[in-house]
């Protein structure tokens, strides 16, 4: 009995001791190295050697070719691709958790444009001296802006993305209308097209209205397209305005009148594309990727060859797209920053971008590629896309982007499904954003 008790006491002491050690370790790893590896300094990028490139899945298989091209020239600075899960959320989580533990696992990060501010402000990525990236001037200016935080460059845009208006060219031609440039024109065109017997069952328009990032994109486009802003150029939210209300009402009224189908409240990119390909939509806002898929003649699309592409319409003239795309940044914790910088330059070069467009149809950021006659022949949507991206607006470039987009989605979703009057939704959003964005 006595033995047993003394043993237990020993065991307790041991457990306590070991958990204290662990505890200390927890505190230690949280606090040490607080200086980081000088991620915020804008000095020279040093260190050469093999690096790892963390990116979402290489969808086309072309990324491997691109990296192989680099590796063939740089035997001592080989790049290895680390593929992250398909979902953007998961990609961001993996990158953040590696940054949290200051892991050197990732060297170059393939960041969604909306993550730049957060990664920069947390010192997870290194500032890039602009003079080391002389080709920046040759990229579309709107895309370069997405790589900046507080006027300093942190990431280089390699692919871009902009919204396009897909329309049923066959039906519009038959009804004798042109592709619309304003919302009112789109409504008229829709009414005329729906008078045709073959288009009776179709709905007018849909974008992405499920409660996710796509809703923020579509909401912003509606607001910007009516001359309003979500966050002004001064960095202050200014969404409770008559213009913004008109923009939001374009969507709210669309749902009310049935021009936008009810099911569109559940649409992400894919369900919307499906509806368009099934012939259930006359107009559809989506990204360039739809073009090739909707033109497939293997039976998956009922409208192959029957649709056209135009820039997004707006209230009084051409609309404003929300800017998508991906930027490459250098992890603050990688020792081989010079190699990483060279790799980014390589990947954003004209030659590599051209090779990438040809293989993947991802929108380039290199401006002159949009005027390349060969590419235009292969991808007829490049001209409207250039217009779309050229005038596109970024989503708010704020550190707490996650909170901001959630607030936007909350307000927009409530207005679209009819639970909040649009005016109240915008007023509420203005209040919310004001507390979230204080810079």
């Amino acid at each position: 009995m006595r033995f047993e008790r003394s043993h237990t006491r020993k065991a307790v002491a041991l457990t306590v001791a070991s958990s204290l050690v662990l505890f200390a370790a927890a505190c230690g790893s949280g606090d040490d190295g607080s200086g980081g590896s000088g991620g915020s300094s804008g000095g020279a990028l040093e260190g050469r050697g093999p690096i790892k490139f963390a990116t979402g899945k290489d969808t086309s298989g072309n990324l491997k070719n691109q990296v192989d091209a680099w590796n063939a020239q740089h035997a001592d600075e080989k790049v290895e691709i680390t593929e992250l899960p398909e979902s953007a959320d998961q990609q961001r989580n993996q990158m953040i958790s590696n940054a949290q533990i200051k892991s050197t696992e990732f060297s170059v990060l393939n960041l969604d444009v909306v993550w730049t501010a957060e990664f920069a402000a947390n010192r997870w990525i290194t500032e890039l001296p602009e003079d080391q990236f002389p080709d920046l001037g040759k990229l579309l200016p709107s895309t370069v802006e997405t790589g900046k935080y507080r006027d300093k460059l942190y990431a280089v845009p390699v692919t871009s993305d902009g919204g396009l208006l897909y329309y049923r060219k066959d039906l519009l031609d038959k009804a004798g209308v042109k592709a619309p440039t304003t919302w009112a024109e789109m409504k008229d065109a829709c009414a005329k097209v729906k008078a045709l017997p073959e288009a009776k069952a179709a709905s007018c328009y849909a974008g992405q209205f499920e409660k996710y990032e796509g809703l923020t994109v579509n909401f912003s486009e509606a607001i910007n397209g009516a001359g309003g802003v979500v966050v002004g150029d001064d960095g202050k939210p200014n969404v409770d305005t008559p213009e913004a209300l008109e923009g939001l009402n374009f969507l709210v009224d669309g749902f009310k009148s049935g021009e936008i189908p009810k099911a569109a409240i559940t649409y992400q990119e894919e369900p919307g594309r499906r509806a368009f390909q099934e012939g259930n939509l006359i107009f559809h806002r989506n990204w360039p990727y739809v073009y090739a898929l909707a033109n497939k003649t293997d039976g998956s699309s009922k409208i192959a060859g029957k649709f056209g592409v135009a820039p997004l319409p707006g209230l009084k003239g051409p609309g404003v797209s929300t800017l998508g795309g991906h930027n490459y940044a250098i992890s603050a914790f990688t020792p081989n920053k010079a190699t990483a910088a060279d790799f980014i330059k390589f990947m954003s070069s004209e030659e590599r971008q051209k090779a990438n467009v040809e293989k993947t149809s991802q929108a380039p950021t290199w401006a002159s590629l949009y005027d390349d006659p060969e590419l235009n022949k292969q991808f007829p949507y490049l001209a409207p896309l250039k217009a779309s991206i050229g005038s596109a607006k970024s989503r708010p470039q704020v550190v707490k982007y996650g909170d901001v987009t959630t607030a936007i989605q909350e307000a927009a979703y409530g207005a679209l499904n009819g639970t909040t009057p649009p005016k109240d939704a915008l007023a509420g959003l203005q209040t919310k954003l004001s507390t979230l964005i204080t810079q």
Partner: protein
Amino acid sequence: MAGRIDVKAAEAPWYRRWLPLLGVGLIVLYCLLPFYWMIVSALRRPSDQFDNSIVPKVWSVDNFKDVFQAGTGFGRGLLNSLIVAGTVTILTLIVGMVAAYTLARLEFRFKNAVLAIIITTSMFPGISLVIPLKKLFSDIEWINTYQAMIVPSLSFALPLAVWNLTAFFRQMPRELEQAAMVDGCTPAQAFRKVILPLAAPGVFTTAIITFIAAWNEFLIAVSMVNRKDIQTANVVIAAFTGTSGRDQPFGSQMAAGVVVTIPLVIAVLIFQRRIVAGLTAGGVK
């Protein structure tokens, strides 16, 4: 279906014989219908992926080919899943049985406290364990290793294994071991030769549940391992994308799901034979 039930109910003499069969039919339908949808979706051509017809218009194994095409690393992923889940199962059974037998048969202080501590560890939301664990594994350089997946899965599986096995061992009459020990068996022998065969259903069930849970584990596997050659099948599936990154390859994801599930079911069927075998063996003794 409701109509059929009425008919059976009306024919009272047949009631006894048919009701269980009907129940069986319903249960099988209930379990398999969604799975059927998964298989059918996998067997459609990628071009009619969104079809809702009950059988594919044109049968195709294109989705399966996509899953196994070079570069996806799916085959390797399956092997890794097998390595991880297999090791976890074996370790869980060994460690868990020792603990459970101790808890079932030895009398010592703090026994209930130990049981309480063990179950308490499966009360914390799993998603909140990832970052501290990643810090820890990073400190001890376990990132990108098998043990970084095996040890967490082991710890997730142990509470259920210990509790479940303890319940089973306790149900075994103590007199059995005493009789065996009278016959000259050591306590360990008594456990192995007498208790284990009798508790076989519980042990095998625990094994199956552990294996499936480890096989399906995703959160830890995706967080602790970046290297493609040791990623598990689940992580590989999560990285599947379509041709553009925005389109979702539902067909190949479902095909991968089928490929991941079928071996499990076959393994379980084999296990179940063993359960029955174990039972009869125990009965004879």
